[in-house]
């Protein structure tokens, strides 16, 4: 048989493959029964170990703070929606589930430097894949994913969350204390700051 040259088509060069011999079995292993007893010892000892089952409906799971559940729209100190309608979350969204209509901010908001605000802010929770990219894209930390995981609805319309619903998620989760505000920027975030020199 001639030597075959594969060149670049070979996924792994043969020289990089390490061949490992099967371990040799001694008398103890060849008898099978001691190995079986060792296995039984492991499984039987686990029968008396503490169980890790969570009794779900009665016992709520402890979720990590970075769990990606239902979205919320954060409020600022004055209770106004924090979003500046920059469309960065809608652009980042791979599922195209965010729909924003921007409007000029009311005059009293403009005193704080707010130029725009979202007139409507709709997230289709059924299209969302809960990837968290909106959260990463947001320059003012206005959109966050919460640890609410048991989201259900009776119709598709119910699962389309508008601005009021998203703000109410903020109220519920901050009052319950499950999801503290994770804002790390100033009142308007880095987008409102002058670009670094």
């Amino acid at each position, binding site marked *: 048989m001639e030597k075959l040259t594969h060149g670049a088509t070979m996924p792994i060069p043969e020289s990089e493959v390490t061949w490992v011999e099967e371990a040799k079995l001694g008398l103890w292993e060849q008898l099978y029964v001691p190995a079986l007893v060792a296995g039984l010892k492991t499984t039987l000892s*686990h*029968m008396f170990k*503490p*169980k890790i089952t969570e009794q779900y409906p009665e016992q709520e799971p402890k979720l990590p703070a970075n769990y990606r559940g239902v979205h919320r729209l954060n409020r600022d100190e004055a209770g106004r929606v924090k979003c500046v309608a920059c469309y960065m979350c809608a652009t980042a969204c791979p599922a195209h589930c965010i729909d924003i209509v921007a409007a000029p901010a009311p005059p009293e908001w403009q005193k704080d430097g707010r130029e725009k605000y979202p007139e409507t802010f709709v997230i289709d929770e059924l299209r969302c894949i809960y990837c968290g990219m909106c959260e990463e894209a947001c320059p003012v930390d206005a959109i966050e994913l919460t640890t609410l995981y048991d989201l259900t609805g009776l119709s598709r319309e119910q699962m389309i969350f508008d601005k009021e619903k998203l703000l109410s998620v903020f109220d519920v989760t901050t009052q319950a204390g499950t999801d503290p505000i994770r804002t790390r920027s100033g009142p308007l975030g880095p987008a409102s700051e002058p670009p670094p020199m």
Partner: protein
Amino acid sequence: MPLFDPYTTAILIVAVIAGVMGVCAYLTLGERKISAWMQDRIGPNRVGPGGLLQPIVDGGKFFLKEEVIPDHVDKVFYVIAPAVALSTALLALAVVPVGATTPVPDPVAVTSPGAVDTFYQHQADYQSQLNFIIAPGLDIGILYIFALGSLAVYGVILAGWSANNKYSLLGALRSSAQIVSYEIPLGLSVLGVFLIVGSLNPEKIIAWQTANGWFIVFMPLGFLLFLTSSYAECSRLPFDLPEAEQELVGGYHTEYSSLKLGLMLLTEYVHLVTASFIISVLFLGGWSFFGLEAMIENPVAAAVVKLLVLCGKMLSLCIFAQFIRWTIPRFRFDQLMNLAWKVMIPLTLLNFLAVMVLLQFQMPLFILTFINIVLFLGAGLFGVWFRGSMSNPKRRVVKLPPGLPPGVTFAGR
């Protein structure tokens, strides 16, 4: 107990079948609970206290499910198959002792004038005893169970073939190959028991063990081999190739639904219960328990104790089978065949040979224990000597000679 009384027999049949069905139902719960505990889970705990009503709900579910008979099946055999499987499994229970048994008295040789009276005395004694066995005094006893155990494969083959589905057929083929192979060590490993007792009758085997000690002491290797091959016969997990879910969807019962599937699953548990009863009778002394049953004077209490002892042994073996199931991974099919033909059959033959030699030269039975241990260790040493290449051949690993440029595949052998 008279030789044949239709009412007693009918009551016994109902009691045995009801008992076995109940045990089977709770074995399914046990299976789920044990697997859960072993995996640090809790298991079913919603239906009834601690999940105790789960089997009833599961059974009810089988009744209420839609019964689908696919268009492409061979309808006659498709419908017959679960019935064949379950009825052969249940028929085997006919000769299985479930409690106290008394062996039929031996014939009396007419040597003195009182022989006929002695005979009638023996018969009267026998008929006054309780016999917890549906068909008592059957001399082909265990042979009948083996015969029906082999018949059980017809249910599987009919199911697999009539389903007209490649997964079912593969499962059925595997099952038949497996059962044909393991039937041999199953039979050979207990031939020694029959030779020593001189009877196939389960009552006589129990009576011999009560008098002389359990066979697990004399034939530990025989017990191990019988236990292993009976797991293979029941398609329990280390040998559940016929319905390997990961490879064959559901195996031979892929196309079954509703109560037919329930019957198929029930069959396996009935096989397990029967096998556990037979192991208790053949190797663990049946209803005897270190002389406990002999201490009780009251015949009814003694019968209850014997019933509890035998059923306790059966249940312990069933639970042990479940421990094994959740401990050992499944064999590969070639390993399964190698184990049967290259390890177990030679060992059972040698064991059988040892029994024959021992009986021929009338040597004491404890030598058999010694021979069994030597055979077991010898098989291990044999495996070490040949590095397991006899029982479990390995692929040759070809190492790359040094100095080949990258990208060049070494094709030398």
